[in-house]
Structure formats: structure tokens, C-alpha cells
């Protein structure tokens, strides 16, 4: 069964390399996107932390900023 699945009437090398390339591309794109997201999120948290209390209060009045901070602490 396993041999049949791998050999595929002599086409296994082509079929499995096409599927492997696809899955590797997916993994690479997912990881790159995830790293970019985390980097930007960390940058936001660091910038927010460096704001004085008045500016932080003003920034926190925006719902999206609160959401970003909440997500960053949850992750």
C-alpha cells in the first residue's frame, strides 16, 4: 500500500515533488507573513510603551489601538 502510494506507477517522483513544492511554498509564505506580523506588532507595543501618559491616553482612545495591544498580550 505504502509502496504503491510512493511509486504511483512510476510517476511518484513527479507527483510527490509537485505536492512537496506546494506544501513547502505554503509553509514558507505562512512563516514569512507570521514573522512580519509579529515584528510589526512588537514595534507597536514598544512605541506605545515609550509614550508619556497623556499621549498614551489619547492613543488608547482609538479602539483599534486597544485591539492591537490586547492581541499582542494574548499571543
Amino acid at each position, binding site marked *: 500500500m505504502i509502496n504503491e502510494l510512493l511509486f504511483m506507477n512510476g*510517476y511518484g517522483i*513527479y507527483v510527490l515533488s509537485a505536492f512537496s513544492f*506546494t506544501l513547502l511554498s505554503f509553509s514558507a*509564505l505562512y512563516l514569512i*507573513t507570521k514573522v512580519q*506580523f509579529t515584528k*510589526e506588532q512588537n514595534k507597536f507595543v514598544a*512605541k506605545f510603551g515609550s509614550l508619556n501618559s497623556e499621549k498614551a491616553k489619547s492613543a488608547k482612545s482609538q479602539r483599534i489601538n486597544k485591539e492591537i495591544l490586547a492581541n499582542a498580550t494574548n499571543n
Partner: protein
Amino acid sequence: MFKLFHPNKIFQITSKAPKYVLFLFVVVLSVGLTEALILSPEDYKQSDAVRIMYVHVPAAWISLGIFSSITFLSISGFIFKNKNFFLIAKSLAPSGFVFNIIALVTGSIWGKPTWGTWWAWDARITSMLILALFYAMYLISWRIYESEEKVFKITTLITILGIVNVPIIKYSVDWWNTLHQPASINILSKSSIHSSMLFPLLIMTAAFALFSLLIFLMKYNTELIKVKNKGLDRL
């Protein structure tokens, strides 16, 4: 109506959605891979080499769909002066480009056992390669131009020029003598593909669509945080 597209409102949904989309993607992909590699029958002519279709065709469909959406969004962004449309278009592009590359590479792998060559300057393959170049130009433009006004203009121009190529890709198999066979799946008329092969193809297409949605959501959230980071600088 465009208030619905306001980033503040969208972020509430887009920030929570990726984990659910990822879960759904893994489930649908597992079913799709089982169908494509084990359960679906081999072709009477191509034997098991036909299984490459289950990654090649969905990748090509989605890359074409994404490029068309990017063009529509860029033109809409220009007409309605809505920056968010450009951000959505920009976030769609990376997965569209990767799907385009997957279609080219898996097509090349499929070409060897069926046509006896890795590459041919056939109308469909060449026009898909041109689409990849348009994707590359689009993505590079976002990296090299600093001014928003300029990047909006240039990326819209690239998509307008690139969209001319999309019907050429679709109809290349009818207009020219190519190595590719004519379309086996038609929305308006009866498809020539058997349901035992159509089903796994549709499942794999759904899995690929979910993956592009996942990447879009993650990329869009990154873009929104980037905008907010600039906002903090201005405080």
C-alpha cells in the same frame, strides 16, 4: 457604505479570524490531500501523473482570481479615493504571486512525464510567466516607492496593464495551437471531467482559497498595524 470598510471596524474581525481560518484550512487540506493522492482514480492516459492537476489547476485559478481582484480594488481605490482598497489589494498580492509560481513549477513538473519536456514556450505557459512578472512588478513597486500617491498610481497602472493578460491566459488554448488541452471545466456548459476527479479538484481549490484568505488576513493586519505605528509617531 464605505464606512463598513473602515479599518477600525474591519480589524475587530480580521484580528480574530486567522486562527479559525487556519483550523478550517488544515481540515479541508487533509481531506483534499487524501482524495487527491489516495482515493481519486488514475487517468486512463496519464496514469498517476494526473494527480499533479490537483495542485496545479487550483493554484492557477486562484492566482488569476487574485490578480483580477487586485485590479478591481486598485481601480476602485482610485475612483473612490479609498486608501483601504489599496491596502486590501496589497495584502492579496503575496499569496497570488506564490500561487502563480506554484502553477508554473508544478506545470513544469507535470510537463516532463506528459510532454517529455520541463518547459515549452507555449502560449499558456508564456502568458502565465508574464503574469508572474506583473505580480513581481506590483510587489516591488510597493517596496521601492515611498510616496503613497506615487505607489497608488504605479501599482494601479501595473494591474491595468497586467489584466489584459488574464483573458489571454484563459483563451490561449482556444486561440493558438498549444500543448495544453482545452478547458475541461465549464461553468455554463457540461464539464468533460468525471465527478470522481472533479470532487477532489474542488476540495483542493477550497483548501487553496482558504490558504489565500489566511495569508490575506495576516498580511492585512500587518498593514493596519504599520499604519497605526506611523500614527503613534505623529502623536
